[in-house]
């Protein structure tokens, strides 16, 4: 495949994301219509959040007396220039609030993806190699249990055991703010804070990927091309590593892409349990402040993140699977 073809493919996939993003914006607008009160009061944080002049200004801006479609158009126009509005509860533009909270969430997601994918794939692989032995059963039972456990409860149990009882890890936050750590010390401190939230958020996905990987390995091992490889006299270990593993990985990659949206949802819960200062916690706060402008901004940004991740997964897929036609 040429670089130019890949470039065209990226552009085409980017274009395909436009309707999704547009859809989220329209959905946001419809939700605002559902909320009690008019658009301006809702956006300004319902009753009393904003000065009267601002609400009037908003009314004017969206043309409150205009037909709904005109209001929608105005809403779209604002979003097109990334004007996500102003949060009076937090006294800051929504966009800057979001950007400030973005990286802690990305850090948590990244470490979770890394942990759940590597451990999940590894456990699934081992379970498949040890299929129908006691080791396989231990892994499978553990996966079934993790798969059924609510995230927030795992978080609380981990705090109970490892923070309160053993005192190994901090109970909340992203860093020790009074210590004023810098450089390497700060990195270590953040990593220390990151351990429990990452484990909490990883459990479910780890179980999911392990189960999927196991099933996928077993399915691939029964396929004709594996018999061909055996008939060629290739050692079993090489067949697993070189032939089966890569084929078995494909559905896991697909699943990781599909699950990214749910990972973001999970982070709302986990961040609120560990007071992790990310988008999820911001969403939790805006929820109770009835700060809809901020909440919808978070929803919009999350949807954009999902779209970007899906695009990345598709690109990874092109590298992994030659059957995908990008031309």
């Amino acid at each position, binding site marked *: 495949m040429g670089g130019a073809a890949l470039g065209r493919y990226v552009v*085409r996939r980017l*274009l*395909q994301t436009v309707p999704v993003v547009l859809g989220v914006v329209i959905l946001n607008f419809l939700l605002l219509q559902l909320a009690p009160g008019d658009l301006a009061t809702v956006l300004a944080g319902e009753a009393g959040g904003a000065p009267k002049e601002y609400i009037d200004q908003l009314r004017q801006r969206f043309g409150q007396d205009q037909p709904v479609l005109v209001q929608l158009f105005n809403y779209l126009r604002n979003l097109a220039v990334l004007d996500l509005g102003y949060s009076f509860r937090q006294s800051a533009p929504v966009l800057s609030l979001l950007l400030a909270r973005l990286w802690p969430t990305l850090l948590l997601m990244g470490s979770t993806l890394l942990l759940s994918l590597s451990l999940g794939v590894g456990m699934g692989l081992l379970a498949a190699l040890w299929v129908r032995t006691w080791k396989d059963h231990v892994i499978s039972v553990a996966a079934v249990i993790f798969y059924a456990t609510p995230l927030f409860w795992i978080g609380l149990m981990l705090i109970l055991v490892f923070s309160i009882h053993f005192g190994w890890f901090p109970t909340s936050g992203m860093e020790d703010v009074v210590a004023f750590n810098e450089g390497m010390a700060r990195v270590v401190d953040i990593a220390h804070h990151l351990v429990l939230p990452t484990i909490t958020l990883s459990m479910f996905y780890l179980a999911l990927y392990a189960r999927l990987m196991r099933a996928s390995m077993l399915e691939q091992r029964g*396929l*004709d*091309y594996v*018999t*061909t*490889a*055996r*008939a*060629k*006299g*290739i*050692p*079993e270990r*090489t067949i697993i590593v*070189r*032939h089966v593993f*890569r*084929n078995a990985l494909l559905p896991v990659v697909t699943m990781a892409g599909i699950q990214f949206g749910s990972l973001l949802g999970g982070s709302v819960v986990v961040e609120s349990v560990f007071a992790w200062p990310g988008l999820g916690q911001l969403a939790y706060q805006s929820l109770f402040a009835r700060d809809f402008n901020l909440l919808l901004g978070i929803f919009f940004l999350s949807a954009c993140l999902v779209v970007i991740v899906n695009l990345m997964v598709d690109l990874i897929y092109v590298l*992994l*699977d*030659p*059957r995908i036609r990008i031309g």
Partner: protein
Amino acid sequence: MSDPVLTIDGLTVSLPPWSDRKHAVSNLSLAIGKQEIVCVVGESGSGKSIMGKAILGLLPKPHVRATGGRIMLEGRDLLQLPDEDMRRLRGGRIAMIFQEPMTALNPLMKVGRQVEEVLEFHTDLKPSARRARVLQLMADVHLPDAERMVNSYPHQLSGGQRQRIVIAMALALEPALIIADEPTTALDVTTQAQILHLIRELQRAHGTSVLFITHDFGVVAEIADRVAVMRHGEVVEAGTADAVLRSPQADYTKALIAAVPGLRPRVKDAGTQMPLLVVRDLEKTYVSSGSFGRASRSVKAVDKVSLQLGRQASLALVGESGSGKSTLARCIIGLETPNAGEVLLDGERITGLSREQLRPHRRQMQMVFQDPFASLNPRHRVRDIVALPLRAQGRLDRAEMAKRVAEMLERVGLSAEQGGRLPSELSGGQRQRVAIARALVLRPRIVVCDEPTSALDVSVQAQILNLLAELRRELQLTYLFISHNLAVVEHVATEVAVMYLGRIVEQARTAELFRAPRHPYTKALLASVLTPEPGLGVPDVGLGDAMPDPANVPPGCRFHPRCPVAVAQCGSAAPAPSPRPSGTVECHLAA
């Protein structure tokens, strides 16, 4: 036979306790001599494939095991060999060619690399030497453009090309024995002949012995030195190919050989000339819509086809997969809507009618589908399946309906008790009888038969073909018979139309077409037919092995890129149909 390469002595392979029988192979003995091709023939469930796997040590462990006997190769008993020694033997001294070239290769690895792997694990060759050997092997199996081919992925190759790759793999280390398990069954007829030709050629050039597993006596006649016929895990007859084919001893062998249609044209009653069904300039194009900058792809499956079907005639539409024969039939029966052209049933136009308007016409025209495992609703009882057309047409009361269904079941050879069963409780042949009963219960005048025997075992195929022939005479039916196999058609058709890439390229009375084919494609198809007559030798039909992409039909005569006799004119101008004694032919050279 002197000095066998492989000797199987009293081999027994046991099945797990929950299977319907105890042994897949019981007390089987067989020997394969040097440079010999031995065909093991049997239907599904005969144990022939299990035997192949047992030789290679690839039985699905732990449930299926060899529990008795010996398999001797070059002085060693393979059943006693440690796993590691067995692995070294596989690919080295014994190699295998599989049935499904579509799935036999790893989809994520370049094919050259997959061939190279054999050398990697069995030789000390340096990478550069390995690559040179791979290129040599590509040339040996007649793959064009080897440099490009080695860097292709399996999905970029045609079925025939993939099978050549698998053969290259098997040949890589000049094994003493190659086991070929139905290597041509999944291929188109013209490709099948070429692959058989290749196996024979390579076997002679390299002095390899071949154990060839097949269900088809046509294949046996082409390729075998000796034959062993298997049934229920045992050898029922063995001998030289000549002896078994010319004077089979076991009844089962006789039945199998009789089931393969030969190519001796017989006189048939031709239908009267009053056409019952007229198809005029029918066109069907499939467009897969492109989204966001992807070009839409349009495939002309049927391209301005006209044909007539006389009363009580039987017209066979013959072609390889992708020829458009099934699409044409589906347009005629109203399962697809043609883009242009018309279909007249007894003088009345039925194209352009809505499904609802078409319903009354269904009584005139019914269909028997290809796969009786798929064409019967698994949740309905046989009796209800046969009654469905009556119920849908809704003109009979309950008692009358039950009577008609019972009569019909009896007529196709099913008992009343079988009428109360579910399809899953019937065999393939019985299911196809149910499907025939369903098609005939409305007493239609035309029956479209879409490859009605291709999903069945050979010995059952003949019974179903005979039943269809009987019913046609008795009920004065008109058949439109679709097949990829000219040999099958010879038994049931009064006329044959050969399709290629959406056009009927030649049409004539059956006897005439078989005796004097005019179109080079018809000639190639006839030459590809394998007959159970020994000593004819493998024909080389001289076609490139892949049909062109139907989305890019070649200009001029659509057959010219594959045609062995094409001239300059063929690439520029499309031939018009020209008459022949009982039909037409579309070829510049035959006109």
